[in-house]
């Protein structure tokens, strides 16, 4: 085999003065880093398997453990960064595509952090959310007829999703995440008056009672899709692309397709679930329109249909096409969006920032006079309440959160989702690991997170003197840019701070 | 309602507690030939060895009798009963006491080998508080290390040996059978115990009986079958016990080894119950009535008899023998037919070191007995499997696993909620 040149990424530091030999670390590490050694009569840690997920650190009852980045750097070279060298070692060893999980971790600019919000002073009063009501409700879906000639919609009220706050849980399939994640998301969505998206792969039978808070996906693999599911769901989302891997399909390896996943996806146990890169029946806006209307037919025109695309170069034109194809909601997933597994080269290098995509799409739809025919939902690394407020000011109707929700459930962002050994019971199908996520605790945490954000959003709105989130939508005057060049400001459609 | 209980030990206390669960009012009378409030018989050896103080030998709190409204008559060994008229006389000629329900809880009586019956003043029994008090007095007067010969290598004999050893005496045990504790251990296990005790300094003579004896007022010398001459300053008789019912002399009372009782622990005479070492009640493994002279059994039988005397209809589900006997720091537990090694049984066993032994005896994949020496981790599970006759075919292999689990072994009986005895 020869020597493996890939050095351990992390070092496990055990404070022996605090270690009581309880072996919780041993049984909690699915990567087998820690083991009890009979000869040494102590716990030995094998650093090279450590993925820095912090399960052992958090579970150690005496706080005896900490994980450090391995200090062994290569000689400094601004061009040949450590990661490049290590990746070459890895690929020279394996000959394979480098896989990763979660979102793009490269230091691209985060434009949310380069925009600041306004607040009222003297001439226009701010509003105290503790004294006066502030409305966060939004309705997603078409707000006007497709066009005057369209008979179908002429006198109809269009199907809407009613959200008590402009946040939903984005698509993460059962298979990529555990059933307990779905249970937590579903319960939290119900409690908070919003929706969760089951991703491509259907909805487990245990969650049937939450269908009216569930958005289901029709993706290129069509896994789990059936008329009953479409009818029961609150909305249907056609997934064209995903921010973390635009242009790339999905591959759920057969090992993760146990009985439950197989039943839910309607495929044989143990078979690989491959979602092709494109929908093989969609080559044009017209084809997309056909699928949208096929779904509308199947759901008696009672369910809004969303189309999800990754944020790529021509996103504005694409969005316009989607709107014209009859979608009720356009979902744009930025290049920092999470994933259960993606080739690292794609994740880190394909797609554009969601902030630009959103600004461009909103602008374009307004210019074309069709903004009110479709709602815009953005996703791809919404990290906090101010990101949401900024997104709405840039033109979004609502946001999807995926990574943030998983973090609330305990994810420690080790980016090893694709291994299936998630120690936090999130991105795994191993029953022993799945158990680690108690959906009751999970739902409670999600509800807490959204409740906290709800308060913060109200504070920010109140500060701007706005008493309804609807009034902020597309109100770019509430934003100012910091450290942005002219072109960036122009695309974002905002002024520079001080202007 | 008036309840009369004869005997004042474990079974009697169980009966009082059983009665009081149901009947808080009825009058309870206990008549005992001993002069103490109920004490724990097994604790006499602990008392003698100095491991417990006198106060802690008592089985219940000081105010037990008052709290439970029990009239206790101690030092009465001449009780008379007329079952036809339901009358009890505490002593002949005393006032008649009418009873509604009567319990016989007179336990067992030590069997004394003939050769010890000679009025020797250095021969002792090992059965009652008084017995060990006498031994204690003797030791104190003697002042010097005594050669103590113990006749009988059963549970009582070894407990006596242990306490004498703790008192610093020179102890020799004489056992006629082919190993120590042979009512509960087979040869292999018996040998482990023998080696252990020998290692600690107790002399043991297996397959030996006393062939000759020397001494006038005192037994001074015993000559054993193998020719050994045992010098002795003291002799303790521990040659077994037998159910103590001969004194009753009731013509309609059915007896075998002990007083025969039905599934409600009633004897053949209406209104008269029996419980404890004196009773012969249903035994689970054999499916027959047997005397199972262990304390848990005495308590449970007493308790159930009490409840039934007070008008309940509690069925006695039967017992199995089980024991836990620490000897000089060595844990020995047994349950069921722990000394059985007949041909149609399957033995699973394991030695983990000289004094660490596990043995399981199975018949048709049902556990019928177990012996654990040394490590007794979670042994209650095995006792339960024996008692419930659970087929363990599926997990026979894992029975020796150190990670024995109730879930695994007990799952055969779904929904067990514990404790309906």
């Amino acid at each position, binding site marked *: 085999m020869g020597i493996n040149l890939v050095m351990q990424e992390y070092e496990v530091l055990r404070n022996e*003065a*605090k270690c*009581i*030999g*309880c*072996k*919780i670390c041993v*049984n909690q590490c699915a990567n087998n880093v820690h083991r009890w050694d009979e000869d040494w009569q102590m716990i030995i840690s094998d650093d090279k398997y450590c993925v820095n997920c912090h399960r052992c650190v958090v*579970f150690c*009852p*005496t706080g005896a453990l900490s994980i450090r980045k391995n200090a062994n750097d290569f000689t400094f070279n601004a061009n040949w960064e450590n990661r490049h060298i290590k990746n070459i070692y890895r690929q020279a060893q394996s000959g394979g595509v480098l896989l990763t999980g979660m979102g793009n971790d490269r230091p691209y600019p985060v434009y949310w952090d380069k925009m600041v919000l306004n607040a009222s002073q003297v001439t226009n009063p701010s509003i105290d959310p503790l004294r006066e009501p502030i409305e966060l409700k939004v309705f997603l879906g078409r707000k006007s007829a497709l066009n005057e000639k369209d008979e179908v919609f002429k006198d109809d009220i269009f199907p809407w999703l009613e959200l008590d706050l402009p946040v939903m849980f984005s698509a993460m399939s059962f298979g990529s995440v555990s059933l307990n994640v779905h249970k937590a998301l579903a319960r939290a969505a119900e409690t908070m008056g919003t929706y969760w998206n089951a991703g491509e792969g259907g909805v487990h039978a245990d969650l049937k009672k939450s269908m009216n808070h569930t958005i289901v996906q029709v993706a290129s693999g069509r896994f789990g899709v059936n008329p009953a599911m479409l009818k029961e769901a609150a909305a249907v989302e056609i997934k064209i692309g995903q921010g973390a891997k635009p242009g790339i399909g999905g591959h759920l390896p057969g090992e993760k397709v146990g009985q439950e996943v197989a039943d839910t996806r309607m495929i044989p146990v143990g078979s690989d679930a491959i979602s092709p890169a494109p929908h093989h029946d969609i080559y044009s806006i017209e084809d997309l329109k056909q699928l949208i209307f096929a779904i509308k037919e199947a759901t008696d025109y009672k369910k809004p249909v969303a189309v999800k695309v990754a944020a790529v170069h021509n996103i504005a034109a694409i969005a316009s096409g989607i709107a014209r194809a009859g979608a009720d909601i356009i979902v744009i997933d930025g290049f920092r969006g999470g994933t259960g597994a993606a080739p690292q080269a794609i994740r880190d290098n394909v797609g554009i920032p969601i902030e630009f995509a959103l600004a461009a799409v909103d602008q374009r739809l307004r210019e074309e006079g069709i903004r009110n025919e479709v709602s815009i939902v953005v996703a791809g690394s919404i990290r906090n309440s101010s990101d949401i407020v900024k997104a709405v000011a840039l033109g979004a109707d609502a946001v999807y959160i995926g990574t943030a929700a998983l973090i609330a459930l305990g994810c420690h962002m080790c980016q090893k989702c694709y291994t299936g050994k998630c120690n936090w019971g999130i991105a795994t199908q191993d*029953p*022993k690991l799945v*158990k*680690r996520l*108690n959906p*009751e*605790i999970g739902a409670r945490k999600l509800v807490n997170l959204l409740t906290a954000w709800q308060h913060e959003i109200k504070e920010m709105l109140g500060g701007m003197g706005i008493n309804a989130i609807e009034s902020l939508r597309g109100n770019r005057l509430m934003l100012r840019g910091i450290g942005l060049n002219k072109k960036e400001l122009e695309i974002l459609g905002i002024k520079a701070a001080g202007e | 309602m008036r309840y009369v209980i004869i005997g004042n030990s474990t079974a009697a206390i*169980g009966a009082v507690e059983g009665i009081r669960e149901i009947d808080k009012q009825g009058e309870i009378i206990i008549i005992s030939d001993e002069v103490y409030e109920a004490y*724990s018989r*097994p*604790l006499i050896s*602990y008392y003698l060895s100095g*491991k*417990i103080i006198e106060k*802690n030998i*008592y*089985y*219940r709190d000081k105010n037990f009798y008052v709290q439970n409204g029990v009239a206790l008559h101690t030092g009465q060994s001449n009780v008379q009963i007329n079952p036809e008229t339901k009358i009890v006389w505490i002593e002949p000629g005393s006032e008649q006491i009418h009873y509604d329900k009567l319990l016989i809880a007179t336990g067992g009586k030590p069997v004394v080998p003939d050769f010890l019956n000679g009025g020797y003043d250095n021969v002792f029994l090992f059965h009652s508080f008084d017995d060990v008090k006498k031994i204690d007095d003797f030791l104190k007067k003697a002042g010097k290390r005594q050669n103590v010969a113990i006749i009988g290598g059963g549970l009582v004999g070894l407990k006596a040996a242990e306490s004498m050893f703790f008192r610093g005496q020179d102890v020799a045990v004489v056992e006629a059978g082919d190993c120590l504790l042979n009512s509960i251990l087979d040869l292999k296990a018996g040998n482990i115990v023998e080696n252990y005790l020998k290692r600690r300094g107790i002399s043991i003579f297996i397959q030996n009986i006393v062939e000759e004896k020397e001494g006038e007022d005192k037994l001074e010398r015993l000559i054993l079958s193998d020719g050994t001459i045992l010098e002795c300053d003291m002799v303790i008789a521990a040659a077994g016990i037998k159910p103590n019912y001969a004194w009753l002399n009731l013509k309609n009372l059915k007896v075998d080894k002990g007083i025969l009782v039905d599934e409600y622990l009633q004897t053949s005479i209406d209104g008269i119950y029996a419980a404890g070492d004196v009773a012969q009640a249903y035994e689970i493994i054999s499916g027959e009535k047997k005397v199972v002279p262990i*304390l*848990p059994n005495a*308590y*449970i039988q007493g*308790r159930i008899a009490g409840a039934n005397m007070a008008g309940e209809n509690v069925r006695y589900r039967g017992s199995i023998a*089980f*024991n*836990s*006997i*620490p000897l000089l720091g060595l*844990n020995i*537990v047994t349950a069921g037919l722990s000394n059985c090694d007949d041909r149609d049984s399957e033995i699973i066993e394991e030695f983990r070191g000289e004094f660490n032994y596990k043995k399981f005896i199975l018949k048709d994949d049902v556990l019928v007995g177990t012996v654990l020496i040394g490590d*007794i*981790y*979670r*042994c*209650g*599970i095995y*006792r*339960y499997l024996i008692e419930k006759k659970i087929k363990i075919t599926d997990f026979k292999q894992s029975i020796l696993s150190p*990670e024995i*689990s*109730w*879930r*695994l072994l*007990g799952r055969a009986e779904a929904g*067990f*909620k*514990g*404790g309906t*005895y």
Partner: protein
Amino acid sequence: MKKVYVIEDFCIGCGTCMVYCAAAHSEYPKDLLKAFKLSSLKPVPRLFIEEEEGNSYSLMCRHCDEPLCVYSCISGAMFKDNRTGVVKVDKERCVGCFTCVIACPYGFIREGSENGRSLPLKCDLCKDSFDMPQCVEHCPNEALRYGEE
């Protein structure tokens, strides 16, 4: 009576309950580190984690209504507290014969020792030092519940 129940779907067998249980019954009930580092005797947990077919369960004394351990106790040291329902050992009276260990059908009583004396070790619902059983208090996955059945 209030007891500890395991919610089987969420017991992950991590052993946190064991650690806190052992500490709660040690010389330093309220200090984990001292309990394990300074106690003269190794702290021993009163509960058991059983594994079966990939599932795990944290289990301890059921404080039975008809407690066989109490009925079998040769010294009268094991008793069921009338008020709380807790099955407890009176350490002063116990002679360490371990008849309770073989009596308990679940095998929930451990043989142990304290200051050189044999003593049975069992769950007492932490009544002596805490309001809440420590296994329940510290279960990271809320898989243990303290309450009525």
